[in-house]
């Protein structure tokens, strides 16, 4: 208990950030139309590719004799990049297909406002 409280106290900012992020994540996509579920999933998938940063740091810190770190790190960088690049590209391709179909909407209403 005591320990937990102290932990909270020391990392209170981080905890705030996490909690607010959770709220935001939920609020933001609350009203997505179901036809967009797939692209949205794909886009989110690309975003968590940010884990690549960790891979880069691992790779960059590895001493040249620490083969495990070098090899695993290298692998991590490749896979992470796959996630990021592939993710964004495939999402863009998907959206390309909904794009044209959606133009009527902005044309129709957006201009009114």
């Amino acid at each position, binding site marked *: 208990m005591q320990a937990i409280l102290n932990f909270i106290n020391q990392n209170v900012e981080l905890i705030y950030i996490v909690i607010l992020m959770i709220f935001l994540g939920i609020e933001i996509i609350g009203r997505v139309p179901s036809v967009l579920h797939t692209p949205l999933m794909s886009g989110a998938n690309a975003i968590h590719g940010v884990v690549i940063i*960790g891979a880069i740091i691992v790779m960059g810190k590895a001493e040249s004799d620490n083969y495990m770190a070098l090899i695993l790190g290298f692998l991590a960088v490749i896979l992470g990049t796959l996630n990021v690049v592939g993710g964004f590209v495939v999402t863009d391709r998907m959206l390309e297909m909904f794009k044209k179909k959606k133009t009527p909407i902005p044309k129709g209403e957006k201009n009114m406002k």
Partner: protein
Amino acid sequence: MSISILSLCYLIASVTFILGLKMLSNPATARRGNLIAAGGMAIAIAGTIFLYDNDGKKLGNYAWIFGGLIIGSIIGTLTAKKVKMTAMPELVSFFNGMGGACAALISIVEFDYLFRENRTLDSAWFNNVAPAGHYLTIVAGTIIGSISFAGSVIAWGKLNGKIKDFSFKGQHIFNLVVFALALGAAVFTWYSNVKIANIPFFITVFLALLYGVFFVLPIGGADMPVVISLLNSFTGVAAACGGFLYNNKAMLTGGILVGAAGTLLTILMCRAMNRSLKNVLIGSFGGAAKGTESKAGEFGSYKEISLSDAAMLMAYAKKVMIVPGYGLAVAQAQHTCHELEKLLNEKGVEVKYAIHPVAGRMPGHMNVLLAEADVNYENLLEMQDANNEFKTTDVVLILGANDVVNPAAKNDPSSPIYGMPVLEVEQAKTVIVNKRSMKPGYAGIENELFFQPKTSMLFGDAKKVLQDLLVEIKNT
């Protein structure tokens, strides 16, 4: 200095992630949103490579880093560009798995550091030498990452048909046990001698992978979109663990954001097809049971229609509505379907498509499918508009759709799909249904529509039937 710029980069990245995701959830801005997020990501990555330093030590091994980045980018771009549109969900699952693996690997390496530093000192216990919080994040990242990796790969295999559904009695108990053991091994690591702490840890990794596999294996292929979305949010959390590990705000915020949004998205997906998440994950066993046709024939008899009559009906109709469904995707008949549309247009028939949001096996499946056969988008009507046009429609041609045109969703409160909005095709003058048999669809329930007087069945594989129809219509 450089550090300050770096944290600014991360700040920008976090904001773009939020904005991007927000824009992605609105058709009009989705594409821009994706680009914005990508831009933020680029900033974060570049910043890390060139500005990162922890107390004075800058990053090294640039050769390896850029090597990895280049290789990854090339493979990623190519696969993403080459893949057939209908195979995209598989690809998403695959990429998601790679992300999970990346998170797991990071944690493993970090553990390895902890381990090497201390194994020299003899007869100390791991928990004396390792800081608890640090170890906790490592374990969390490892387990979640591994599960999401293994699970995603299985899901990928299932979607492209390489892996078949597989389940055995009491599998859930088994899964729970495996998961418990994984945690147990992690705890054991914590209390074991520094010299051998790595052994129980790698057992943890192995068990986590195992769990991932058996978690996804039994779930029906049709539910993969939901599972992928779930694993997607897992990877998000794993990435966030990395964020804690390096106290890196971009990873933290990005990860949590996806974790939260992904979880909600999973629930929304289930809701869109009137199912609970639990039902998708556990209920999947019932797969067989669901297929029941116990109720068969309760609606009396149905009538068939000959190809020529069907061709006749359509050729002389003013307006024809095509309702594509999962069957069209299975038969890969989208191109033939497009030809039929063109042919009818030549004959002065107005042809539109009625798209149900959950027709097929992934959200927007039909849009993707027909886009591939480059059908004109203006002709794809969303459910609402379609339902308004059926009244004025002469012939509705249903190609391999079933649940999405099942009136029980409106009339029969006892029906499992009751409450799900459906395409009200029965408002049209005549309805022609093409499927191979009277077998039920995904929801495994009878469809009264097939037995209504204005409905007539046109059995056969969608592609085959459409080709024959083309010939017939040409001859009329």
